[in-house]
């Protein structure tokens, strides 16, 4: 049963996946087991993304299936022990940029890969990033930006983190449509990633897990 559910999600058979999860719930299966199967499927989806078999549609569909299955088991979920998180990642679209599709996908992939992600949303001011680092204490900060104006916002944000004396406490990764290694150096970030799985790899590399 669990194996079938894993395959249904991983192979993008949405109707089958939801029916199987429903069936499992009604059959009295442990919700931990159901969510475990969903996470196992997400691992497969992530691997297929990395190998170039899957792309955005599959990440978004997998996210949608995971959300529906989570909603399904939610009534039972409150009783579960909290899953141990690998580490904390703070993320947001930088000042002036209100694009969020890329950031949302990165947030989602970090989350399903076991990181505790705090998403500050879009057009996040430099001060808001600094305040959130003080409060949330992340090991990794992700700066997202689609527009060319984001180059300077990223630079300003990194500089403010530096000035606040927090630079050696966090690793900073950046990403977005026009981001290159040139911009990574320009902004003073530690690394940049081309897609969501690269963000996961960077976080794993820096935090472990």
């Amino acid at each position, binding site marked *: 049963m669990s194996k079938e559910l894993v395959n249904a999600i991983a192979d993008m058979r949405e109707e089958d996946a939801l029916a199987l999860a429903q069936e499992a719930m009604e059959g009295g299966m442990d919700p931990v087991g159901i969510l475990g199967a969903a996470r196992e499927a997400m691992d497969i989806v992530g691997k297929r993304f990395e190998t170039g078999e899957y*792309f955005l*549609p599959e990440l978004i569909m997998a996210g949608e299936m995971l959300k529906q299955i989570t909603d399904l088991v939610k009534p039972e979920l409150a009783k579960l022990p909290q899953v141990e998180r690998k580490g904390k990642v703070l993320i947001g679209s930088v000042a002036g940029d209100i694009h*969020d599709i890329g950031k949302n996908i990165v947030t989602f992939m970090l989350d399903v890969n076991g990181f505790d992600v705090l998403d500050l949303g879009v057009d996040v001011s430099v001060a808001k990033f600094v305040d959130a680092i003080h409060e949330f204490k992340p090991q990794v900060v992700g700066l997202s930006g689609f*527009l*060319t104006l984001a*180059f300077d916002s990223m630079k300003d944000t990194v500089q403010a983190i530096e000035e606040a004396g927090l630079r050696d406490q966090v690793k900073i990764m950046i990403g977005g449509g*026009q981001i*290159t290694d*040139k*911009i990574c150096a320009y902004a003073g970030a530690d690394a940049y990633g081309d897609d969501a799985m690269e963000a996961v790899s960077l976080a794993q590399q820096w935090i472990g897990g």
Partner: protein
Amino acid sequence: MEKDWKTMTAEERLAQRLDGYVNTPGFEFASPEAEALYRERATIIRDAFELKVPARVPVFPSEGFFPTLNAGMSMKDMMYDYEGVAKALLAYINEYQPDAWFGALSLVPGRCFDILDYKVYDWPGQKLADHLVYQMKEDEYVKASEYGALAADPSGFFLRTYLPRVFGALEPLAKMPLLPSIQEMPMTPTALIPFGMPDVQEAFKRLMEAGNEAVRWIQVMGGLGAQVRALGCTDWAGGAAKAPFDAIGDTLRGTSGMMMDMYRNADALIEACDRFVPLMVEMAVGAANQTGVPLIFMPLHKGADGFMSNRQFEKFYWPSLKKVMLGIAEEGCIPVMFAEGGYNQRLEIIADFPKGKCIWWFDQTDMKRAKEVLGDVACIAGNVSTALMTAGTPDEVKAYCKELIETAGKDGAFILTNGCGIDHAKPANVKAMMEAGLEYGRYR
């Protein structure tokens, strides 16, 4: 004239349009020197498009908002001060001497959107700070369940469902009658009733107001266009159209919605894309007829590397796009395919197109490979990055341009330009790019 056009072949139409583009009958230039410069520039762009070796590589930045920013204008000024925009653009053309300019397409009039209360974008002077560029807000403005209605009657759907949803001032247009019901005397009066309703009339008043503003804008921009040409600079875009997948995905269904539709509503999605093909062709050709410039800017979004697999690209994205491109070419116009992001995975697929009928303008695609795969099929343009233009040095820019000319520009059929708009580029880097083009780009 009309009859002649209908009996002409695509090649004859293209020849006639290109002749108008290069020779500009009846147009008065600022000086004989400017006229000679224009002819030289239009000729090298035409030669590159025709897969020939031009006298030299055409070179021009994708200027984006660089001219207005460089003139000290805010993004808000760019949307509200038309005369200021015109002045900034002329100063840019005079200073940098590009072979072509992009035109007024993205220099949009803010007041039109204020008047109509547009929901799909935020812009400076409205919700965004003055220094920020207008930005699109992703949402499912059209639901998956509405594909049938959209495909059955796109124009009716836009009039009565989409426009009332995305323009606050046009909500009353939801009451518009089904226009084909206006036939015969007995059926017409009931269809006229909505036009007598105060709220509908108010919506039309706002449309007239926005229309007046658009006319004021185009008077300035049209004048600017003529002045730019009079100085000897050619136009890089005479009209625009989109890939049907993007037309539906960008501002109707949204990225997430569209990506899920590929699994949940595949047939409906493909059908709607096909219904958009003639609309996109008409949009492009209509604009080219008005501007007299056959180059059609086609910004491509959701078909880039990473967005979908090649199999999905060939099923969902490429077929309707190819039909639009062929339709535009059939009318003697030239699709200029702006492939934002990377197109490295798609080169072999897009190479399946009649020879010498379009231009591929690349952003982050490997230009050496693009030349190898597409070189015999299409002129390629690009791809000096905004990152390099913003964060690099003039020497780095020059070195990159030289390398591009030697590889992508080998044996002609190449235009040296940027990937995305250079908005915040360093002026010295823009000069370096122009210099590199003139210094290294001479074929004879």
